[in-house]
């Protein structure tokens, strides 16, 4: 659009050959930064933090239910007894006592590793990052559910990995769809490095794989020689008190299990783990040391002391009830307010409900209007690498009070009604391609600090 005006009279003398792009490092960035652009959708989430907005967007755990006086006492005890350890470098693989404790915890899900098979990480996010780092070269392909966790997609993008999404239904990953994907990739001469799955209380879909489906998926993966990465941050948060058996319980060599204390204790502690066979574990440890030298000793000893001295499973049960109440408020108000044509999942645990809007709607394009109406959600496109998800959205019920959730869903229903009217007026599917959320998926999702 911009061409210099032809000279009439004397030129200004200021016609520089090159202007400024306000970033002297442009020529240095790696190719993987392509798509890391400012996003008006992501910017909207800064409004979501305001108290006037009912945010059903962020996935921040409800740590108000955590007894801070107990935690504080636990930390004080830890420092008094082991402060010299807590404030020093430690093992790159993680504290040995904590690794034993993690073995006890995963034992509840049928996983019985040796403590040496556990690598403690800075959140399970780091565990996923390390797994991707040691297995994937740029251009490799992996399989992930459709939709998948936005934090995982960010990792895969950072390592320039191609993601093939595999369909889910109300019971999670569809085995037949997995078979079809593997066949299609084989026809292209491509072998996926791994299948990334969240089998319990999926983020963002809220669904869970029943036992028989887990077995079938494992059988398919084994037959195809595909490694499975089982990401399980919500496994202990089933509302019926039942703890699903992990996929890792059925296959110690073919499954790498990722866990976290973020939802069962506190996200800010930043302690997660990977359970992996010895060959993988050795490489994960080396990779972890290269990344952070060692996981924070302070955090590890804090959680270790807490686990050893406090009825931590009672706290998990408290969390379950907190989230159950909120799940119920969400589902009841969706039932009450959503228009015909909208569908949603009905989670039995975890934090999320996946809502799919009536045909023709675009949750990404609708978000500005939702913010105006003082309600926030995460558009479905954030959870896909390939632009899918426009009709869907993730609602997080973990943080707001139940009455706020009900108000939020009521507001959301009003926004949907207005949007349907807009569609009716213009008779078109909304959202021109290449506009909203055209960059990386994570540019249409909030950062972790958004409630």
């Amino acid at each position, binding site marked *: 659009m*911009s061409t210099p*005006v032809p000279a009439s009279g004397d030129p200004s003398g200021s016609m520089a050959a090159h202007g400024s792009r306000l970033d002297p490092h*442009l020529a240095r960035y790696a190719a993987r930064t392509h798509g890391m652009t400012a996003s*008006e959708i992501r910017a909207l989430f*800064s409004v979501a933090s305001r108290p006037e907005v009912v945010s059903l967007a962020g996935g921040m755990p409800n740590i108000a239910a955590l007894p801070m006086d107990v935690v504080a006492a636990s930390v004080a005890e830890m420092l008094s007894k082991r402060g010299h350890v807590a404030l020093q470098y430690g093992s790159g693989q993680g504290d040995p006592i904590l690794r034993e404790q993690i073995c006890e915890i995963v034992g509840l899900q049928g996983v019985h590793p040796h403590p040496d098979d556990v690598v403690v990480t800075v959140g399970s996010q780091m565990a996923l990052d390390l797994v991707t780092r040691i297995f994937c070269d740029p251009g490799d392909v992996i399989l992930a559910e459709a939709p998948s966790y936005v934090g995982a997609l960010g990792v895969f993008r950072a390592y320039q990995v191609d993601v093939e999404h595999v369909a889910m239904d109300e019971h999670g990953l569809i085995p037949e769809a997995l078979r079809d994907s593997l066949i299609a990739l084989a026809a292209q001469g491509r072998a996926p490095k791994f299948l990334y799955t969240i089998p319990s209380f999926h983020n963002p879909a809220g669904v869970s794989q029943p036992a028989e489906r887990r077995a079938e998926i494992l059988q398919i993966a084994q037959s195809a020689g595909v490694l499975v990465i089982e990401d399980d941050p919500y496994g202990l948060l089933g509302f019926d008190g039942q703890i699903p058996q992990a996929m890792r319980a059925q296959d110690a060599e073919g499954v790498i299990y990722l866990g976290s204390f973020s939802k069962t204790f506190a996200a800010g502690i930043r302690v997660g783990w990977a359970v992996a066979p010895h060959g993988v574990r050795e490489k994960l440890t080396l990779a972890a040391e290269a990344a952070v030298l060692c996981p924070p000793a302070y955090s590890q000893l804090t959680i270790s002391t807490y686990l050893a001295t406090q009825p931590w499973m009672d706290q998990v049960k408290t969390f379950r009830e907190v989230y159950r109440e909120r799940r119920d408020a969400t589902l009841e108000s969706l039932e009450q307010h959503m228009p015909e044509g909208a569908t949603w999942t009905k989670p039995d645990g975890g934090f999320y409900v996946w809502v799919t809007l009536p045909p023709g709607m675009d949750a990404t394009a609708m978000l500005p209007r939702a913010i105006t109406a003082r309600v926030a959600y995460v558009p479905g496109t954030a959870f896909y690498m390939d632009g899918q998800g426009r009709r869907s959205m993730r609602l997080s019920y973990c943080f707001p009070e139940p009455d706020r959730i009900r108000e939020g869903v009521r507001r959301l229903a009003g926004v949907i009604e207005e949007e349907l009217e807009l569609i009716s007026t213009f*008779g078109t599917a909304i959202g*021109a391609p290449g506009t909203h959320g055209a960059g990386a998926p994570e540019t249409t999702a909030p950062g972790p600090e958004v409630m």
Partner: protein
Amino acid sequence: MSSQRIVVLAGGLSHERDVSVRSGRRVAEALRAQGLDVEERDMDAELIPSLVADPPACVFPVLHGAAGEDGAIRDVLDMLGVPYVGSGPTPCRVSYDKPVAKAIIDAADIATPEGVVLPHASFRELGAQAVLTAVEDSLGLPVVVKPTKGGSSLGATIVRNAAELPGAMVTCFSYGDTALIERYIEGIEVAVSVIDLGEGPFALPAVEIVPDGGFYDYAARYTAGMTEFFTPARLTAEASAAVAAVALRAHDVLGLRGISRSDLIVEQDGSVQFLEVNVAPGMTETSLFPQAVAAAGLDLGEVCASLVDGAVELDAELS
């Protein structure tokens, strides 16, 4: 005043909150670099009680979007008797509404693109296709569709063929209930900032905007590297003088004060078209105003401090 502190007001509840917060942070840091005592505050329920309990020397509003740019906060500050940087409430209200501003600009014989203003209701009541056909027949293509209120190109689309019009309207109505549809003007896009440091308003060097994608949308505005800027703009001396004159005239006829930024197009023949004016221009690392300040050889902190001084002096004169 019981305090010499300056309150930088940023954030708010608009779609541009994120930009406002970053702009506010930068203004606050720039003022602190001048040795001033600065407090950053959001526009929330705590603001008025805090201003009443401990009135600052001056408020520097860096709010974008409604309530920040539509004059509302300035009306409140006037009621509280707190000086503030920038224009008064009525000029803000007028300038924030693009069609109203354009009407005043047009009456002052400043060229502005031909356009129509259409609320959502008109499409519903008259039939979208009929209205859009009339738009295409009247204005031709391409056109620019944008909300009548708001900045950062939110909700704005350049429409080059008729099939894109419905989608552009819907995108626009995601951000507001009324659309401004203007004839698209080919030319050099420039932003001309006007400031008054005590000796009367003067124009800073024009910033020429060349976005890689051809449209200065949100990503192009706030992602370093996606737009190339030429400051001063690559204009002839005549054209440079013309854009400065238009920006100053707009600042004057709209009754603006202290600081403004006019967005203009310079056509092939050198004529200048006014697009819109901003009474609280962005101050982020990729924003246009700071680039203009730097090109003028000025320091952002010194400019902001002078604006504060001017606001305080004006308040004293009017008291």
